[in-house]
């Protein structure tokens, strides 16, 4: 929809745009690789807590499929992100709770 420069809505829209910009500045978006890692690692950590006990071969297969999908390569990705964001206290704090090494 085109907005006429003289439209009475123009000041209101400008206000909304300013508010959105301020909100964006307050919480900078995570870079895609960081966001992807955080989501994958959260899922990985969930399934690390789902190892069936007592052992159940069917359930273990299901869990290991998810572990393969979400955990593989996590150690290297975490190390790389810690290095990349070593001077960023906000991101460093987000990465801090993760165990450095979960893979063999």
């Amino acid at each position, binding site marked *: 929809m085109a907005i006429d420069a003289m439209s009475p809505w123009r000041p209101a829209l400008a206000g909304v745009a300013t508010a959105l910009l301020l909100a964006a500045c307050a919480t900078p978006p995570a870079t895609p690789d960081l966001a992807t890692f955080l989501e994958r690692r*959260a*899922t*990985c*950590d*969930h*399934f*690390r*807590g*789902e*190892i*069936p*006990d*007592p*052992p*159940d*071969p069917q*359930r*273990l297969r*299901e869990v*290991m499929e*998810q*572990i*393969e999908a979400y*955990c*593989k390569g996590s150690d290297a990705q975490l190390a790389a992100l810690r290095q990349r964001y070593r001077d960023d206290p906000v991101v460093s704090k987000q990465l801090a709770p993760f*165990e450095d*090494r*979960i*893979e*063999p």
Partner: protein
Amino acid sequence: MATAAAQAAATPTAGAVPPLTTPPVPREPSGRQWVARFPTSASVADCTPPFRDNLRAFVAALGAAGASVNIAATLRPPQRAYLMHWCWCIVKQKTDPRAIPPLDGVGIAWAHLDAQGGYDAGASVAAAQEMVEAYGMQALNVAPALQSNHISGTAVDMAISWTGTLAIARRDGAVVSIDSQPRTGMNPDLKAVGATYGVLKFIGGASDMPHWSADGH
């Protein structure tokens, strides 16, 4: 049996200063026998309040509605998570058994000693390997978690099923008739009912079908 320390405490000598520290608790070497201890529970009663009461109410509502509920797991004791985690680390990550931190209430000696009292690396790793096998984790390529909703007593793995229409009460008592598919715990209408009890279906979709928890994780 009286220990030397207890005997010493019972027969004080003039001017003797009592020890400030308790003698070390004897530790039992690691091995297969540990696997039977601290078992994972399938009982709602072992969950942590308020999730315990929420889950109990939800399961009761399912039962009253005629659904079948089969609970596979609720609480995994932190002691068991500790045992599973560190035996795996010794075997798969070559973690030094002498460097593993102790956990209160688990008197396990990860580092075995030989006849001369020296560290026996071979026996230590072999015992950890026994435990990994007894836990069924030989093929596992990631360290078992030390923290999770199961470990904190706020999760359940359960299979739910029913036939026909499920008429189930929400937490507020209002009855919802569910005739949608599937007739399992993956039913979106049942998930909404569970949420009224504070029992949330896993947010990751079908990747973990039996899992419900206090926060959806």
